[in-house]
């Protein structure tokens, strides 16, 4: 009767607990690292139907963001431009390029070019571009250095924590609204200068970003 379990079995409960702790720890660590927007979203760079280069148009040629994303100051959406906007230039420049064939087809037929979405807030988030850019939050804060991107890439997590970091402490990310589309701009006074100016803006412009649910969820 007494010999059913070998002596080494005495260690078994401890081993099981140890295993569970280690295994649970690994699963937890893996989940917190791999299953967050920081990991899953950053680096997403889908192939677009037209290989549009922001580096070329914005970085090199210096076309302002708002030339194409013209609604960004007026609406919640920073609308992707219509084919007509592209054709403003490309009816003259590279008007035979095969790469631009989908744009020309869209302009002719009215059917949209099927751009692949890179940055996407969930349906239950009502993000509004206009209020951010008009109050001095630059495009670069959420979209990264788009002016250097050949292919648009997701560079910030855009998770709720990411939003709240800034909503709780907006000073490091505020600049003169005139400068919001200058993605290369950095405060001449360095980090301290930015914070000092940012805090001044927070006070002077009554910046009071919502931190409750109702700010973004309706």
């Amino acid at each position, binding site marked *: 009767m007494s010999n059913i379990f070998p002596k080494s079995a005495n260690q078994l409960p401890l081993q099981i607990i140890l295993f569970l702790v280690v295994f649970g720890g690994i699963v937890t660590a893996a989940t917190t690292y*791999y*299953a967050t927007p920081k*990991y*899953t*979203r950053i*680096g*997403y760079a*889908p192939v677009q139907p037209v290989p549009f280069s922001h580096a070329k148009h914005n970085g090199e040629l210096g076309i302002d963001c708002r030339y194409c994303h013209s*609604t960004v*100051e*007026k*609406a*919640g*959406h920073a*609308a*992707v*431009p*219509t*084919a*007509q*906007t592209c054709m403003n230039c490309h009816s003259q420049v590279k008007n035979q390029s095969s790469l631009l064939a989908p744009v020309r087809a*869209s*302009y*002719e*037929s*009215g*059917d*949209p*070019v*099927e*751009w*692949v*979405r890179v940055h*996407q807030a969930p*349906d*239950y988030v*009502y993000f*509004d571009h*206009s*209020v951010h850019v*008009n*109050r*001095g939050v630059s495009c670069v804060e959420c979209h990264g250095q788009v002016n250097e991107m050949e292919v648009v890439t997701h560079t910030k997590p855009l998770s709720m924590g990411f939003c709240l970091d800034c909503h709780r402490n907006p000073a490091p990310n505020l600049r*003169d*609204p005139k400068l919001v589309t200058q993605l290369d701009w950095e405060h001449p006074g360095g980090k301290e200068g930015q914070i000092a100016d940012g805090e001044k*803006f927070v006070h*002077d*412009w*009554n910046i*009071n970003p*919502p*931190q*409750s*649910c*109702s*700010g973004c*969820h*309706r």
Partner: protein
Amino acid sequence: MKRKVEHPEPSARELSGPRYWRSLDELVETPGFQDKLAREFPDGAADLNGVDRRNFFKLMAASFALGGMGLATGCRRPEANILPYGKSVEGVIPGVPQYYATSFPLRGAAVPLLAETHQGRPTKVEGNPTYAPYGGASLMLAQASVLDLYDPDRATTHTLDGTASTPIAMRDKLAAINSAAVATGGAGLAILAETSSSPSRARLVKSLQKKLPKAIWAEYDAVIDTPPATAARAAFGKNVKPLYRFAKAKRIVAIDADFFHAESGALGYARDFAKGRRVIKANDPMNRLYAVESTFTLTGSMADHRLRLASSHMLAFAAALLAKLSGQSSVARLAQGLEFKDQEKWIEACAKDLVEHKGECLVVAGAHQPAQVHALSYAINAFLGNIGSTIDFVEMPQSNVATLVDLAAVAKAGTVSTLVVLGGNPAYNAPADLDFAGVAGAVSEVVRYGYYVDETSALAGTHIAATHYLESWGDARTADGTVVPVQPMILPLFDGLTELEVVARLAGSDTIDPYSIVFDTVTKLAGGNAQDAFRKFLHDGLLDGSIYPIASVNYDQAGASALFAVAPSYKALNKDSLEVRFVIDHKIDDGRFANNGWLQECPDPITKISWDNAILVSPRLGRELGIEPGGAAIQVARKELAEYPQGKENAFIGEVTVNAATVRGPLHIQPGLSDWTMVLPLGYGRKVSGRVGQDAGFDYYPARSSQQSEFATGATITLTGERYYLANQQEHWSMEGRDLVREANKEEFDSNPNFVDSFGIESHAPANLGKDKDMPLAAAAAEIPRGNSLYKTPEFDGVHQWGMSIDLNTCIGCNACVVACQAENNIPIVGKEQVLRGREMHWIRLDRYYSDGKIDAAAFGGEGNKEIPEDPQASLMPVACMHCELAPCEIVCPVNATVHDEEGLNVMAYNRCIGTRYCANNCPYKVRRFNFFDWNDRSLDQLYMGPLGEKGMPELVKMAKNPEVTVRMRGVMEKCTYCVQRIQQAKIEQKVKARDSDNVVVPDGTIKTACQQVCPVDAIEFGNIKDPESKVSKAKAREQDYALLGYLNIRPRTTYLGKLRNSNPHMPDYDDLPLSRIEYNTKNHPSHGDDHGSGHGEAPHGETHGEEHGHAEEPSDGHTSIMKNALRTGGLS
């Protein structure tokens, strides 16, 4: 290398015998088949779905590599696309709604609207504020009409002889009808249309009548909402119609007139009435309403003196009133036999009051009343000098159309070969004696133009699908004659034809494009530069100066007398000879909105029954029939109206026989009905309708005859013994002597404007709950105790602090807010079965209470409680989430799904909600709604199907949703958000405007909640209570402001303004307190129950009040259990 298989040659027997073949290829021996035969397997069959081993390993290597990258690809959301326009559309900014002026046509009057469109998709309509008489308010029906546009059950195709057809075929058909009619001068062609106010249609009809003089143009509407023209013609010798000016009237007598709902232009009337009703401070003027009515209408619920009288006795009443006023004996004979309680005194006091307000009083007769009653009311108004001040007459164009009666006679004689039914639904709602089916049968061809495939379509060979008004070009007139545009917001979803095009084609006009027709009509009316005028017309949404001209009229005694030369018609009623009154349903009108789920689910404002139309009987008749519920429930102070097993009203089914027809329906005992009148609401019991309207309720149209279409006498009722469940959304009807709706008479208010704080538990509670409840927010945050709770009092430090004020004195209880809220906030419908379980989702509801002042002191079991009130006062109260500052729902939520934001909103985070429903349980106002099912994703018959059911919302229904509001899923709680999407949008717009300045405070009046915007009487104010100058702050600063259940110390942000009744002390039914107050006093001060004035009613003693009773160890003046219990349990300390 492929191995070649050599088959042996076929034997001779094989070649000569019957040949079997497996395929045609084999039979004809194609080269491909020969090749296939030669192979062991077909080409590629050995490959793995076209991938060979080599490729397989290549692929697997790639996917391992991807897998090695971690969860990046696996967890990513599915790829989404952004689809911009090919060519930019002028004025369209994605995500920013656009507003266009249009209007909602309904019979002879339209409601001017602004339609909100999201990239060409109309989602919501609001009143057009440019039209001053309606001031931006709109109707419940207009609000719900958006849903009809996206109704999957509407006629989605044209039909020709039972098969689907095309618009081109329909146009040919109409052209063929026209050319056939031209050959005969129109003989044989008859057109039956609904009445319409459209000037363009009137013009086309005129041209049709000119071109086809022998054609018959008839118009029919199932309900009458304009006074009969014959009365005005007799009284004034002119074709005029009255426009009432309620705003100027200080004394109003409504003779069976529901001018809040059933009259054409009711929206403006309700609005004007509220202007005279609104009382800001003590001694402000307030109008007085005498309502004489057979049924219990909203107008009756607002009345200061309400007299129950059968509809058929109104003639006698009007005559008696005129006789009393003018002393004319000529009309007195019409009043013969009139009999009601305190008759002499009632009429005398009322007449005296009117005479004292000559020129500023008004007598209104209901549109459904016969011409004699109207002529009498004109005579009374003329005698009192009201014409030109409180009542104007406008000249109406003489209409030259036939009636349905004429048409039926001609058609039955066999002289009509083609009948075109333009809209309407005569097969369902024509008077039974006209036998519309027979009429249609006597005609060789019936062409039907309609929005739904319905009862009439079933009789027609051809069905032309109509467009919705939001898809059509058109025009219309409001009740006062202002021409307004009907502009399309979207191309016809199902290739429908507009009404103007159909009429133009029938008339053989040269212009058949509806836009051009409207352009021609309007520019001709406007004059000046046509293009400019038309653009202005579309922009403003109305044509300036197109109002009907006011006619100067003189009362013509002789003309009117001719009308009175009828035999006195007074017939006494009793339980064996009852009166039946047919009323237009409050929600689905004459049945045209039967397939609209929002309207079906909206409760009737008085009975609170949804999805059904019960036959209303008076408590007296209920007693006679023996259908009064037996046994008073112990736990409530009153006996219920009917049995409510598990919250379902279990009604008896009765059969009403009148006009030689019998109709059946469930009986609902309705307090306040004239004893021997039964009310039959029309519009339900549709036999051919969509999924929503089909078979909902009961059809009472068969009991109508063309002679007695509004009310009929000589009816009988029998019980069938069957029972039927009614989805009644309010089972309970008594305030139990509590202080929920706080009312006072005008005199008491004038001497004690703060009456609301001198009764109710607050009058005994610490001052912060009563008098000082409006203390500054900063002080409130610091000083208000929150019981012994560990929870912190919110700091109220946001830029704005939102609050709402609802004026119970002007609220007429019309339910427009309920439907407007539903449209704005994507609130689903749940169907009758679920309403029976109490799962309706409305975020705002209207509580309706009856009081008759007879509550017994003993409260539980006294005699007074065993009577269903026959003559009650009704008090209505809109209740939505109050956004309590110390919200009880928040402290019980285990997952922080409902929390406070910095601006005082009690917000719901749907993603956090796990559906414990604790919050709903802890809400004292019962305003939280739970998604028991995926209402949005499942049709109502699929709710219980679980995983087997069909899921997904039809595309068409998706289009009706407001993109600014989350569509909620199963298992989450929801409730009023104060229209947080509108608040956020306004704040964002203000911040965009502010840019690098600090001007971020939204100006007062920018934000209107959906309920506030629709409200016909402006009873709701919403805004920033931090700003003392805002309208809502001013409303809350008024003395009659109080919080519902304020003694709970939860500090609701929505407060109410007390209700006033302006009773006439000389009237026989006068009480110095409203009946609900009498009940309150009787219950709470039983020792001096009949001494109403003493105790709390008296003038300025509020200050000392708290002390007076607060310290009392043993309340000596008889304060009863509530107070004692509250003190004992420490609920108030």
